[in-house]
């Protein structure tokens, strides 16, 4: 492999990883804070892409599309949390019912976009300002990919800042570990949960909009995305923000180089990585062997 190919694959992998991280970090955030496994998280990526397509069709502006995607997906996410997910909280075998409920969302959202936008796939193009590419000596990298990498980094840093350096972040983290206590301090815990849900699904929707120029927009993409994010969060450890970042980078690069190595089977490599990780670290790479439940 020449150095040029290596570098360009590496950056390709990096941009895929950042998109993956945008989705997976939302998934892991919802799980870590609200203790909900949002099986439908990939579907917010999908509706984000459709919202952005619609906004671009109306206003002919990529950035309005991005905002519409994040806002739209976030609102739908909060709505579903308030109307449905919240209502099964505390039930016996809540985990299983959460998965089933969010599975139903996948089916419904898939058909909803088919109903609204039709079964044929849609495309949108990159914004003109980012359509070109940048030369680094012998290596040429699409500007849009670099943009996604930078965007991803900005979001990583701001999420880190909010969660670990602000009062809001402290409330969120406290709400996840000691709901009752935080409730007694006068914080509206269910509002916090809805907001976390909203922010996380907005990140998913934004990822969908950002990925749209690179891929196609079609019903059913949510499932592919959730499977990939699932692999990422399982490798990184559910609820582990930095684990998700590392795992997204790993999977992004494995895919980027795997496609050179064994083109036909590349899409199955992520599974192989996940299975290997789970054999040695059943709770993800970054799990500390936690004590058993108190009795």
């Amino acid at each position: 492999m020449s150095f040029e190919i290596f570098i360009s694959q590496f950056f390709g992998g990096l941009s895929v990883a950042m998109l993956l991280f945008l989705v997976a970090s939302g998934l892991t955030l919802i799980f870590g804070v609200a203790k909900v496994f949002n099986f439908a998280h990939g579907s917010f990526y999908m509706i984000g892409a459709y919202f952005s397509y619609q906004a671009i069709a109306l206003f002919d502006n990529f950035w309005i599309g991005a905002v519409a995607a994040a806002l739209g997906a976030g609102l739908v996410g909060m709505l579903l949390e308030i109307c449905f997910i919240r209502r099964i909280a505390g039930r016996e075998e809540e985990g299983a019912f959460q998965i089933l409920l969010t599975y139903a969302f996948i089916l419904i959202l898939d058909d909803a976009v088919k109903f609204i936008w039709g079964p044929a796939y849609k495309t949108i193009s990159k914004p003109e300002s980012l359509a070109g590419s940048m030369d680094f000596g012998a290596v040429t990298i699409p500007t849009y990919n670099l943009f996604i990498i930078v965007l991803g980094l900005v979001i990583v840093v701001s999420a880190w800042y909010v969660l670990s350096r602000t009062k809001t972040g402290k409330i969120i983290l406290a709400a996840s570990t000691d709901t009752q206590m935080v409730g007694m301090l006068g914080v509206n815990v269910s509002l916090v949960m809805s907001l976390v849900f909203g922010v996380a699904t907005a990140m998913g929707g934004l990822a969908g909009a950002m990925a749209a120029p690179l891929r196609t927009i079609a019903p059913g993409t949510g499932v592919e995305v959730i499977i990939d994010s699932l692999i990422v969060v399982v490798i990184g450890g559910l609820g582990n923000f930095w684990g998700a970042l590392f795992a997204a980078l790993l999977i992004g690069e494995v895919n980027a180089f795997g496609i050179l190595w064994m083109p036909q089977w590349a899409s199955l490599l992520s599974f192989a990585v996940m299975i290997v990780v789970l054999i040695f670290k059943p709770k993800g790479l970054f799990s500390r062997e936690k004590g058993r439940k108190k009795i």
Partner: protein
Amino acid sequence: MNNKLVTMAPWLAYFLIFGSLVFAGGDHTIHIASQVIILGLFAIAFNVLFGTTGLLSFGQAIFYGLGAYITGMMAKSFGGDFFVWALLIAPVAAITLSVLLGALSLRLSDVYFTMLTLAFAQLVWGICVKWSSFTGGDDGIQAIPKPELLAGGLNYYIFSFIIVTVCIYLLWRLDRSPFGAVLKGIRQNPTRISFIGLNVFRHKLLAYMISSGFTAVAGGLYAGIDKSIHPDMFVWTMSGSIILMTILGGMRSFFGPLIGVAIFILLEDVIGRSTQYWSFVIGAIMITVVLLFPKGVVGISRHFAGLFAKKGGQLDNP
């Protein structure tokens, strides 16, 4: 005596309904009924994991598809007479695979287990689609030969009915066995199970093997209905539908999953044909069931039966 009648009543209904179809059913009915009993076996086997042991696997389609492909490919390679033998080989293969997958996934709890089973299912589905030289890829396998005797729809239904009934009977015995009691204990309180001296993992693994074996039989039988199989049998929505049918019927009752399958397939036959938004309908049913009727159809009818029973009791003891 009365008690015995209560336990036998579902069996009586089972034989009455599915037996009478042998005499009364037209081609379409028989086709539907074949699907109901075969998927019914799948759902009841799945419920050994879900309703009984509390393990939500999203990957049981692996074993369903495996059963179908082993049966289909063997019959295709070695001729129709081999079809029945393949039905025996399918569960053996499935059980072997389940030991491997179970050993990896059953160490994890709750969501992790569910998601790992889903990931395995996607992996197997991916292999099935990509390895087209061996599996026929996206097109699947058509024109699977069957023995002369099983050629007609009705004959095949009778054959399936016998095999499914034997399997369901065995699973019914399991449900009422000491082993079944341990599985229910694991669902309710795994810690306590270890403190009465039992190894939780080993019992879960055995349950997983058994469930997977019977699932493969269902898959194998399915290969004979339309004589064609396709990678969709492996796909995760297959597992999803089985889960839905199971809770729709009632996961806390032995025959609940079969009832759920029957309702689901009849609905699909009526509604599914007239709309292209069938997934939407499934999703809506699922939300309704999860939010309002988590105990399924059986749960609802038990609730009403309970109301009547209480009234009766008051009359007896004024």
